[in-house]
């Protein structure tokens, strides 16, 4: 992975990786129907670094989960790598989650009973990789995130930042096209958060992994390509990085 040459920046000719068409999602609680998404249309190209922003209750989480194949939409189409996620059964969804998408969580979510290496290996084993190959690749990934010498530590013996690094290594195990990050720096202190952001940016720039990141962290927004602003179940606006840099400068002036 480290050997691969820096990929060119995504542009209008890069292939579309995720495409949503009129995606709606309703939640029912008794008679109460909540429209979390009201017809979302968007395209995400290969190699982009997307930040998803929005106040709580805006449908941001639902949007995020729908394109991550964690939630099936009530109507509309969600094409991940040209496959309509809404049409898949649960085992096919498991396959998509296994091979195409890597997940990074706010609370790291390492399996407590397993060591760092085993945590990285487990998704490869789910994917049917032979154990020896999984071990070799697992060690390589741990080296990539700078935790090679900690391979047999259990999650309890690792700091928050180290756990998140292991989680990132795990999310990369099956060489996913997409990395889905849910507030990856929210539980970390400033410096550690910066390390994680640097790691994600490096993965994006060097390895060309498409990253979609729900976040409130302005440092993350600073490094992304585009920001999706979600409000009231719709994409309110999509801004390029260039526009945001100006805004951030403005905020810094205040």
């Amino acid at each position, binding site marked *: 992975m480290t050997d691969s040459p820096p990929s060119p920046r995504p542009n209008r000719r890069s292939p579309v990786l995720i495409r949503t068409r009129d995606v709606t999602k309703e939640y029912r609680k008794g008679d109460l129907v909540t429209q979390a998404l009201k017809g979302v249309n968007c395209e995400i190209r290969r190699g982009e670094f997307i930040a998803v922003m929005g106040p709580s209750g805006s449908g941001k989480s639902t949007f995020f989960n729908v394109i991550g194949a964690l939630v099936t939409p009530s109507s509309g189409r969600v094409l991940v790598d040209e496959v309509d996620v809404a049409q898949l059964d*649960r085992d096919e969804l498991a396959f998509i989650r296994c091979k195409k998408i890597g997940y990074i969580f*706010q609370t790291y979510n390492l399996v407590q009973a397993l060591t760092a290496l085993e945590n990285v290996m487990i998704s490869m084993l789910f994917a049917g990789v032979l154990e020896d190959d999984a071990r070799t690749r697992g060690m390589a990934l741990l080296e990539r995130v700078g935790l090679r010498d900690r391979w047999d530590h259990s999650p309890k013996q690792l700091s928050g930042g180290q756990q998140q690094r292991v989680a990132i290594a795990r999310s990369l195990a099956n060489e996913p096209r997409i990395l889905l990050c849910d507030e990856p720096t929210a539980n970390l202190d400033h410096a550690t958060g910066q390390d994680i952001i640097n790691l994600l940016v490096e993965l994006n720039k060097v390895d060309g992994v498409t990253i979609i990141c729900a976040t409130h962290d302005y440092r993350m927004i600073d490094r992304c390509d585009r920001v999706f602003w979600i409000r009231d179940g719709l994409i309110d606006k999509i801004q390029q990085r260039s526009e945001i840099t100006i805004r951030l400068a403005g905020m810094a002036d205040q």
Partner: protein
Amino acid sequence: MLEVREQSRLPLPKLLRICKLSIAHRILRSAVTVFIIALAISFLTSILASGYLGRAARDAVLEETKELGAYSRFLAALQPFSDEAAVLAWLARVGDNPEQFGNLLRWTGWSEATARAHLASAAEYQTLLDFLGTLPTGERALLVGSSRGLQILGKLEAPSTREEFFAHLKSLKSVRLTIPPDRVARLLNGWTEFRGVLDVVRRGNLRSLQEIEKTFAPEGAAKALAREAREDRAGEFFKTLAQGGLGFNPSEAEAIARGAIFEERLQAAMMVARNPSVRSGWRAAFNEDYSPARVLVAAAESPRHLQWIIEQWKRDNPEGTAFNQEEFVSVSREFAQSRAAFAAEQELTGRYGREKGFDPRTLWLVAVSFLVCVVGIANAMLMSVLERFKEIATMKCLGARNATIGFLFIFESLAMGVLGGLVGIGIALIVAVIPPLIWNGNWLVKNFPFGDLAFTFGAGLLAGLILSGLAAIYPAGVASRMAPLEAMRVD
């Protein structure tokens, strides 16, 4: 999407390792779960095992005392039936025994078909009598007054009494009549007639015994047998006996013959034990109550006692009648052994009961213990599932299929089931197998039921697997249906 088929299941060793780690991770709760399983399994296996051990020990004892038992049955057969009840009990027991059936034909002159019909009726009457015998005393008094045994049948023959009896029986909630009432009525109607049948058997038996007595007069059949057996002519003796109307099956006859020889030797030894000086000097010499049996047991066990007994014999027989010390000791030993065997048989029957399998109360207790066990495991597993929701959802995000997650938890439960089963078997070994080995070691070692115990422990292990598997179904279902979205939850 053909590609999905490529996605493999988690390999078994890995699955086992994850289970082991999860169990170890929640070691205290896992230990409690394993302990619950172990208790239920040890309960089941210890009940089964002690039943098998008891039967095995009893079989060994009965084998040991077979000859004396056969001989005493032979002596009993030489006596006429004491009353109608004895005739009925004998008829009910004849069943498929060809020798007994032959005896019956010889005594009564019935055709085989007639005899079979009478035997069937006798079995029915005996069943009815047994049922009446199982009624609680108070209720029996209410139904048939102070009558007992066959009197009851006679009393119930009067239609008015019988109607009253059935009415009472219906009103009694605690007692249920296991025989259909119409069959009971038919039996009771025919009772007078059947007494005639019993009388024919009784008279035939008496005639036959008188004939035998004449044949072997004046010494009697028992003495004659002892003499013939000593000279190895027991076969001839039993042939004569069968012609007289008292047939025994060949292996029984052999045992009887050996029993007769031993009985004669025992009587000779008893003569020594009954010597006047032994009888009068015993208490003074050893400060023990005197009985001939005790003298023989003491002679078998203690050289000091034996020496003393020989001295007494010499004093009583100054002219030097031969005393075969070797023979005396060996008879005493055999006698002591058979007495110990009888005592052990009594004790074993008392402790384990005569019945095979579970009585309803024990069955109920086992069922309840299993139910508690299943609920306990299911509860612990469900707790484990709910508390690991994030871990499960994360694994689903990583591409685990529903089935994989379900297997993971079923495996975890099964692993604890096997562990609990093994611990339970260990407990059962300590509780149910080792104590009888200490108490009744001699008899058990002779006939140790390895096969039955292996079966019992296998059944225990299987029960542990089944219980833990059953208990895991619901928690595993909850786990496998858990939405991957749960992984995003922050709390």
